[in-house]
């Protein structure tokens, strides 16, 4: 076994980010898989990397892991340059194409990865039992991986990614083969990791999944980040609805200073009241003689935001493609 014989551990206790990239590009022949990826992931945060199929999500992960080399640009993972083996000692990774030796038992696969990750031999047994327990495979630990369903193999892959108390876990579409129960388990595991201060980089095209667990999100499309930030920053609170009685047309007209208002039965909807003006809006209704029964703030969903960004880009590209020869499309 080569535990202890790997590269010297990396001191990642400094305040540097878990991941930082600047202008990372990757070209495969004539295909631009990544076109200048700049991002920063802090320790202990769950970072969602969201994009449609072919957006460059898996390419980005491979560059972070050193499985592929960037065409240009630079980056660090846990303080080490991209491709540095030292960082991989503190990493957990679930590949999109999760395949493990089919002729091995689940426990043996986990032991193999303990060995490769340089986990001290004395803790293997605990690490393996804990990993099997967390991913719900304790009963199947002694079975051959070749007999596992896809979902079980993905659970095993998740267990593999959790071995050795990593400081950063990279998950590539971690629920692609899982049923709703499995998906819930993955969310629980991700939250558990965050509580332990582990950074999680979650590659996914499942919007609901990202929205439920991520602290920050980057939306990628055609190899570049088109929007990034916390969910609050990304998803503007656009509207407020108030269930109100006792207001007549005159009072309503006075409230027009908060922007366009629409009524629907007892519901009064304002399309553009910023969150910090909501108390003023409610106070103005009360001052006008209205009785407020309920106030609902509604923010854009990630899906709406995603489609507005990705669809806008797609329609722009379609417009550029359909423009006659010699005529430039709209500026990017």
């Amino acid at each position: 076994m080569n535990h202890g014989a790997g590269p010297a551990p990396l001191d990642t206790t400094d305040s540097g980010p878990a991941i930082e990239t600047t202008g990372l590009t990757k070209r495969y022949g004539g295909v631009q898989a990544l076109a200048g990826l700049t991002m920063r992931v802090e320790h202990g945060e769950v970072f969602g990397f969201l994009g449609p199929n072919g957006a460059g999500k898996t390419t980005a992960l491979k560059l972070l892991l050193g499985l592929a080399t960037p065409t240009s640009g630079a980056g660090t993972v846990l303080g080490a340059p991209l491709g540095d083996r030292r960082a991989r000692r503190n990493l957990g990774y679930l590949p999109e194409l999760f395949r493990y030796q089919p002729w091995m038992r689940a426990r043996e696969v986990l032991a193999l990865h303990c060995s490769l990750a340089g986990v001290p031999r004395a803790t293997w047994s605990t690490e393996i039992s804990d990993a099997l327990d967390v991913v719900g495979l304790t009963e199947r630990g002694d079975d051959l991986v070749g007999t596992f369903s896809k979902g079980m193999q993905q659970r095993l892959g998740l267990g593999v990614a959790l071995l050795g108390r990593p400081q950063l876990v990279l998950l590539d579409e971690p629920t692609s083969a899982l049923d709703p129960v499995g998906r819930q388990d993955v969310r629980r595991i991700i939250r558990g990791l965050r509580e332990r201060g582990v950074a999680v980089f979650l590659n996914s095209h499942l919007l609901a999944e990202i929205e439920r667990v991520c602290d920050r999100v980057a939306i990628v499309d055609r190899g570049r980040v088109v929007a990034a930030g916390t969910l609050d920053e990304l998803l503007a609170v656009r509207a407020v609805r108030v269930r109100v009685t006792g207001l007549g047309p005159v009072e309503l007209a006075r409230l027009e200073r908060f922007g366009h208002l629409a009524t629907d039965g007892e519901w009064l909807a304002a399309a553009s009241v910023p969150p910090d003006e909501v108390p003023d809006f409610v106070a103005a209704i009360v001052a006008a003689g209205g009785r407020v029964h309920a106030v609902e703030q509604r923010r854009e969903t990630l899906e709406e935001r995603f489609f507005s960004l990705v669809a806008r880009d797609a329609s722009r590209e379609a417009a550029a493609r359909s423009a006659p020869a010699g005529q430039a499309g709209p500026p990017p």
Partner: protein
Amino acid sequence: MMTIVRITVLEAARRRLVWALVALTIVMVVLTGWGFERLVTLARGRGVSELQLTVGLSQTVILVAFMFSFVLAMTAAFFAAPALAADIDSGVAQAMLARPLRRSQLLLGKWLGLSIVIAAYAVAAGVVELAVIRFLTGYAPPDPAGAVGYLTAEAIALLTLALVLGARLPGIASGAIVVAVYGLAWVAGVMGAVGAFFNTPALVQAAEASRVLVPIDGLWRGAVFSLEPPAVLFVAAQESRFQGNPFFAGEPPSAAFLAWTLLWVAAVLAVGIWAFRRREI
């Protein structure tokens, strides 16, 4: 790296490759043992001299060794070609290489593990075959350890090539290339022997060049020489037509050739590591 060696050996055992080889060896030993027993009984019944019998037996042992070398070569090629290639294609290698594991460690670990399995099989099968022949006929070649050693080295050379090609090519393509290389190298060796018999320097030089390029035919000739008793060398010295026999070697491989073979294996591995490092997974 020892982790990779261990799982490579374990995989061979779990995937029943070892058991398939054991079964194949039993069949081979039983059939050839029966053949040798019949040969000796018939020859002695007809009053063939012991010298003639020794020459005949030694040539038959060399033929069996050729068949064994073919089985070893095919096993090495089809065992080693997918060893890396299939792991890369299936995604098994991705998860492993995301660990602090060097690509050179993965390649060399696989190489060492495969070499151990092939060498263990070659030694076990060779010892059993020669022991059965000795038991049934009383004949023992002069240097059985040398013969098994050369055959093992030949298989390891092919295995190295197959593994390294698999670092960049699909397993099936690597296997096919190695089988073709094996066949061409053997044919080049035969053409060299024919060239020597007809005194055609160009053919001899082409064969020499092929032995440098891929040293497997030279190793096969080393195995042949190890299996030739003094009587055969004596007969060959008297009769020049023996020189043209592709199953005859007049001299053992030189120390320089053996050194070159080691260097060749090391160089192929070095090129393989270089190519594997550049592969995007």
